[in-house]
Structures are given as C-alpha cells and as structure tokens.
C-alpha cells in the first residue's frame, strides 16, 4: 500500500515525497512519530486494523453470543429441531446432513455434523486461533531477539553456534517440522523439568509454532545487529565504558524496535495459518475444542454434503490473516519501506 513510495515512477511523486520528508525533518520529529504519521495517512491499513480489532472483540465476546444462541461450543444436538419461518426443521437431517445458515440467533451460521452451533464454535475457535497466533508470534519474537542479538553482538563462537542451529531448523520445511513435533508431542505431552504439559494443551501448538519460525526472524535481526555494532554510537557506548549487556539494552535493542514492529503482525498472520495447517494434518488444537484450523479440517472432510462447514471458518480465518497482512504491509511502508520480510507457510 505504498501511497507515497520514495521510488514512485513519476518525478512529481518522488519530488513530493522528498518535500514531505524535508518538512518532517524540519519539524524535528523522531522516527516513531514520523512512522505513526505516515501510518495514520494510510487509510486502507487502518481500516484493516479496525477489522482485526473487531474480530478480536467478537472472539472475546463469545460467551455473550453463547447466551444469545442458547448453546455452548461443545453441546451436541443430533436430534434437536429449530423453528425456521414457523416450520420445524431438523438440526441434523436423518441422513446426517447438518442444517445450513439460518440467519437467526440459533444456528446463525448453521450446524456442524454433530449438531453444534457453528457461530458459537466460530467465536470460541477464534479465541483459540488468536491466542495461539499472538502467543506463538510473541515467543518467536522474544527468542529471535535473544538469539539474533547474541549472535550479532558477540560474533565468533557464539555466532557460529547460533547460526548453525538456525540453519538446522531452517533446513526443515516449516510444516514438516511442525507436524512431526505436533504428532509426537500430542501423544506423550512434554515434560520440562518439573513442568508437565499435557498432550491436548494449547501450549503445545504455541511452543511448536513459536519455535519453527525463529530462523525467519532471528536471521534478519542478527544481520542488523552485526552492522549496528560497527556504528559510531555503539563505539561511543563502548568508549564510555558500558559493558556488553548495557550496550545491548540501551543502544542495540531500541534500534531494533522498528524491525520488530514490522515483523510482528506478519508473524501473527503466519502463526494463525500454521495452526490451521497443523490442524488439517491432525497435529493442531485437538477436537472437540474448536479452533478455526480444526473446524476447517472437519469441514473439508464433509465439503460435499455441507460446504458451509468449511467455508464459514475459512472465510473467518482468511479475513483475520488478510487484515493482519494488510495492516502489516502498511506498518512496513511507514517504518521501513526497504525491509525484506518474508515468511514461509
């Protein structure tokens, strides 16, 4: 969404950009203020941010809708009936086909093959997917900052070891590693010292997704720290007698913030997509607890008889991921138009 790209084709655009940059410099604004100002002008990015916030709010409001619809996300209803235009209709027909969207409070988006209310599950599933997406992205970010900064700042053996570890993780396709870990862990759970995580805990997909994306973020951070440590301000810090830890905290980390801000929304988007992919291969959030991923998975299996079961959660997921990607694109344009952000999924 480069509304004002420095590299616009026509000369007028470029000139206007320069002029504007000049004005911003004269006003003496910090890089954050400049970026926020640019972001504020990007209406499309802001509109999608609003969509994302609304989606999060809807997921948080799941219990309210549960009351409206009158049933919980796990309540089966194979033999129940709903009143549609004054007529009674089976929630799940005798040959096992669930009812489609009713457009009323009960079964707004139809039922699934167990007679559960898809709308209620969609909102609760959104909680799972968003929780996993946000936590996994946070985990990736924290670990990438730690590894990237250590490798880039200390270089030498530390760098060689961290880089090698990242190369090994990188050599696995994201999905293959994720599914392998997910399948193995969901059977036996995970025991780290005294902490025991059971196999059906949501912490497992969070840990897996947070882990597999580390190289995608740690590598660019390492590169940035590597070039930063040669800059004058780091040298000045060293000359003042600052130790490595203080230099990292007060000089390096603040300068990484724009990279992190640019990466974060895109990491969340990819984490949500990976959760869905893991669920599709049977290694994500374990049913019956809903997540968008496992709802799409069960919908795909029954797409011929009840396509709404696959379409509804899929549209919700695409809308969420799209809103994060468009907003993330706007953030990148505002903070760092030259940033090379690329994540596989």
């Amino acid at each position, binding site marked *: 969404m480069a509304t004002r*790209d420095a590299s616009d*084709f026509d000369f007028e655009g470029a000139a206007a950009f320069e002029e504007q940059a000049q004005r911003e410099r004269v006003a003496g604004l910090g890089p954050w203020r400049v970026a926020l100002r640019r972001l504020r002008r990007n209406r499309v990015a802001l509109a999608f941010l609003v969509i994302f916030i609304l989606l999060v709010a809807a997921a948080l409001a799941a219990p309210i809708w549960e009351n409206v619809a009158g049933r919980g996300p796990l309540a089966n209803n194979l033999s129940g009936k709903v009143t549609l235009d004054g007529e009674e209709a089976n929630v799940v027909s005798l040959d096992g086909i669930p009812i489609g969207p009713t457009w009323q409070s009960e079964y707004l988006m139809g039922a699934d093959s167990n007679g559960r209310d898809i709308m209620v599950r969609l909102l609760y599933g959104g909680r799972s997917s968003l929780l996993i997406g946000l936590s996994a992205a946070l985990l990736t970010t924290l670990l990438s900052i730690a590894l990237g900064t250590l490798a880039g700042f200390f270089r030498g053996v530390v760098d060689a070891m961290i880089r*090698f570890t990242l190369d090994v993780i990188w050599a696995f*396709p994201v999905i293959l590693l994720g599914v*392998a870990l997910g399948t193995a862990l969901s059977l*036996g759970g995970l025991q780290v010292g005294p902490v025991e995580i059971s196999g059906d805990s949501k912490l497992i997909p969070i840990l897996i997704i947070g882990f597999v994306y580390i190289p995608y973020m740690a590598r660019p951070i390492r590169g940035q720290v590597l070039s930063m440590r040669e800059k004058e301000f780091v040298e000045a810090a060293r000359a003042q007698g600052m130790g490595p830890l203080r230099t990292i905290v007060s000089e390096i980390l603040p300068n990484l913030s724009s990279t992190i801000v640019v990466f974060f929304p895109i990491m969340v988007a990819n984490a949500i997509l990976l959760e869905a992919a893991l669920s599709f291969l049977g290694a994500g959030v374990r049913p019956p607890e809903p997540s968008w991923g496992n709802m799409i998975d069960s919908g795909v299996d029954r797409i011929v008889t009840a396509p709404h079961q696959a379409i509804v959660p*899929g549209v919700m997921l695409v809308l969420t*991921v799209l809103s994060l*990607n468009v907003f993330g694109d706007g953030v990148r344009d505002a903070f760092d138009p030259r940033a090379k952000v690329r994540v596989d999924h």
Partner: protein
Amino acid sequence: MARFIVRRLIQMVLVMFSVSVLTFLIFNVIPNGDPAVRMAGKQPTETQIQAIREEWGFDEPLHVQYLTTMEKVFTGDLVSYTTQLDVVDQIVQGIPRTLSLAVGAAILWMLFAVALGLYSAMKAGRFADRFLTVLALIGISMPVFWLGALMNYYLGFKAGIFPNGGYVELTEDPIDWAYHLVMPWVALSVLFIGIYSRVLRSNVLDTMNEDYVRTARAKGLSERRILVRHVLRNSLIPIVTLWGLDFGLVVGGGAILTETVFDLEGVGQFAADAIGQLDVPPVLAITMFVAFFVVLLNAIVDILYAVLDPRVRLQ
C-alpha cells in the same frame, strides 16, 4: 574460492547430520509409546512384544539404533514400521508425482508473478497497483488446503470442469496428466504469485532509481528497452534465488498440504501419512530428502553469491 566452497560443503554435511539426529530424537525421546507395542497389534503377549523389540533392535541403546537406521537409509534397506514396505521404493514412486506438481507450479507462479509484479510497478500508486496488491495479499492469506478443497468442490465436484484429485502418468497420456494437475498447480501457485509479485514490484521500483537507469534514459533508449534490458534483468536476480529455493522445497516434498488435499500421493503426502502413524523410518528418510534439497540449493546460492561478490568470501 576453493576454500569457501569446501567450507560450505562441510557445513552442509554437518547440517544434514544434525537434521537426521533431530528427526530421530523427535520420535524417540519424546514419549509416544513403545513402537514394539504398536506393531504387535491388538492384545499382544509379552513374548511377542519382546520378539519384535529384538527383531527391530528397539532394545538397543539409542545411538546404536540411530546408527543402524542411518546405515539403512544409505544402503536403501529401510523398511516402514507399519506397512513393512521398502521406504526408498515408496519415495521413488512418489517422485514423478511430486516433480510434476513442482515443475508445472513453478513455471506458472514465475510467469504470473513477473507479469503482475512488473505491471504493478509500472502503475505504482495507481488503482491497478493497489488492486493487484490487495489481490496478492489475499493470495498469501489463504490456507492452501482450504483453497484446494474449495476448488475441488466447486470446479471439480459441482461444475465438473476438472477431475477430483488423482494422478495420471505423463507417459500414459500427457493431456490427461496436465488436466489432472491444473487445479493443484493453480492452488500451489497462488501463495507464491502473491509473494513473488510483491518482491518483484519493490525490486523494480528500487532499480528504477539507479543511476544506470537514468543514464540509459539520458542516452535516449526507449522506455520499453530500459524496462526489459536494464530494470527487469537486474530486478529478477533475487526472485530467481527465491525460485530455486522454493522449487527445491516443493520437489523435496514440502508441498505436503497441496499433495494431501488433491490426493497426489507424492513424497509430501507420504511424509504426512507416515507422521500420522508415527512411522519413524519413512519420516526420517523424507526429512533427509527434503533437507538435502534445501541445504544443497542454499549452498549453491551462497556459492554463486560468493562468485559474484568477493566480499562474501571473507565472512
């Protein structure tokens, strides 16, 4: 230069070794039940389990198990725990299918990405550019298996335009082969078209600001010639790098989701099935197979960069 290549190759072997150890550990250290019990079937006796344990070497220490398994990977004697079929044979069976998917999709996504990315850059900031940007973002926001399932349902099942999954040998009937692969190609390409066209667009815009483009324009070359000869050629380098890496990933079985949703029974789907059954030998072999392509293509890219840019060698 020779030293750089040797160093890179040693690193490659080390990464491959670590990948195999890590895969082995994932399935052997994380408690997932005793493979001997799983293989013994329903209500096994203790002696049966013990016999299987001895036969397959599950009673040996871990490092011995690892070494024997790896030996079998390289001699081609690896046998699946569940089907007892030869793993290498099964991978070889999957290769033509996976390769068909990879080659067609790679050509498709490159063509569209270049066309759309270039057009987007030429119209930068205008409506067409924004429209294509949104389209590209929608493309990278869709889970491929969902898109594939919808295509299967609407284009395959309902409209009956394309066949629902399956694979026909190229040698058997080339037209039917392509006909069966159209939907998988398109589904797999969507994501890559989204990524590549965005990268190309920003590369083209960056290149347009280079001095040599201004020089070309100053000496009076036509816009068309500037665009093709000077801008596009230089903007394509990073894209071609990505192309190589992603192609390697797909050939190695990385397109697990696409293969599964269209039931192509290629290397990727084989991997997914094996993981689901905790069948360690095929998983280990396929992981090595994929990692080999990823690591090899990475090394080739690094070496090519070192050839082109001497500064890289000093790192």
